[in-house]
């Protein structure tokens, strides 16, 4: 993949605007919240709850963009706009693709946070 997991320019801008210490807190919050968002995606998919599914994807997209995680943001946006039907068609594969991208984002953010 040519695109980096985290866009450093955006991440650094965030650090500059909000302060390094605060961004560490923000990253930690995201890493705590995101796994339950992924669960929420899976549950709402299983329960055919389109509203919760869209809202959760929307939330993930918004957080991904905050940290410059473009690829994760794009996958979340696809889910938000596409709704449940395409996910059903791939038998939930698009959620798992997003989960894998999240794992990369989480690793990259941890590294940046500890740098």
């Amino acid at each position, binding site marked *: 993949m040519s695109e980096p997991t985290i866009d450093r320019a955006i991440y650094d801008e965030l650090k500059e605007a*909000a302060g390094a210490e605060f961004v560490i807190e923000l990253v930690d919050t995201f890493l705590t919240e995101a796994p339950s968002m992924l669960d929420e995606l899976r549950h709402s998919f299983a329960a055919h709850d389109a509203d*919760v599914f869209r809202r959760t994807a929307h939330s993930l997209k*918004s957080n991904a*963009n*905050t940290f410059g995680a473009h690829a994760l943001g794009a996958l979340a946006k696809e889910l938000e706009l596409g709704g449940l039907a395409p996910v059903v068609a791939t038998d939930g594969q698009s959620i798992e693709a997003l989960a894998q991208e999240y794992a990369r984002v989480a690793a990259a953010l941890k590294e940046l946070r500890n740098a």
Partner: protein
Amino acid sequence: MREHATGPARLLVVDDNKVNRLLLTRSLELQGHRVATAENGRVALEMLRRESFDLLLLDMEMPEMDGFQVLEQMAGDLQLRDLPVIVTSSLEGIANVVRCIELGAEDYLPKPVNPVLLKARLGASLEKKRLRDQQKEWMRRFATREVAQDLQVSGFALGGKRVHGAVMFTDIRGFTTLAETQPPEETIELLNTYYTLMFDSIASYGGVVTMMAGDGLMAVFGAPLPLRDPCAGAVRTALEMIETIELFNLERVAADKPQIRIGIGIASGEMVAGYTGTNERATYTCIGDTVNLASRLEAHTKAAARTILIDGATRAALGDRVQVEQLGPVPIRGKMEPVEVFSVNLGQKL
């Protein structure tokens, strides 16, 4: 009300996502503002109705009650409809943005929110709010609550509508002589006390003061909001005013000051009520024959040596509820035929 838009403001951030909430709060606090947060629309509305805020930063996609519902509820709430709202969202589609603006949002900032843009938009919104607050404050001071509310609900438009109501004119007897015999400061103080007492009586019976000129007052009962019994409201006000003046005079005698006497004229019927003037400077008033007659009756109290005079229509509307003395047909300036005039007996309860 804040002195300066750039000073610290009290803001409410509404977002269901914790990362968004933290980040936006941080940005705003770095700009020197005080920030409270809510995690959905329902909680936000509860807070807005309980506490006072200068501005709301609102996310759209939220569980329980989303941003659109919050905007709808605020638009229908007189207390909240003027609170500026900046929508911060990563909503997809321009149609959603348009919908926010149509529902009354002041501005729309896409997420992630750019701090520089945020600061500029926030400053502009707070400044607009400050001006609106100031206008409302002026309105409160220079117009009555009813007129201010009518303006808020119906908006401002020159031109009148026909209403049925009662008009009252009052005047302090011998005011010019009084004013000449005492220092101007004392006269102003006397007028202020007098107006405070009179406004209180007028408002308590549903009347609206539409004009103050020197020691004269004009009040309308039945506009801008209709009253069920405008004539009773006007006459009750007049009787209460006289009682109040008597109490006021006791204080003045004790302070070795001359007593004051007032005359009151009341007429009822159809009139035209509305805003006259220009778009820049206008006043709420009522015009028509009824208004002229009330003014003439007030002027006639002196010649008739009576305190409260009412016209035939007011007398007829009140029937036996009011005790009057019939003064017979009186020639009134501006009227072809003499008109029936009644003097209201003082000290009665309606």
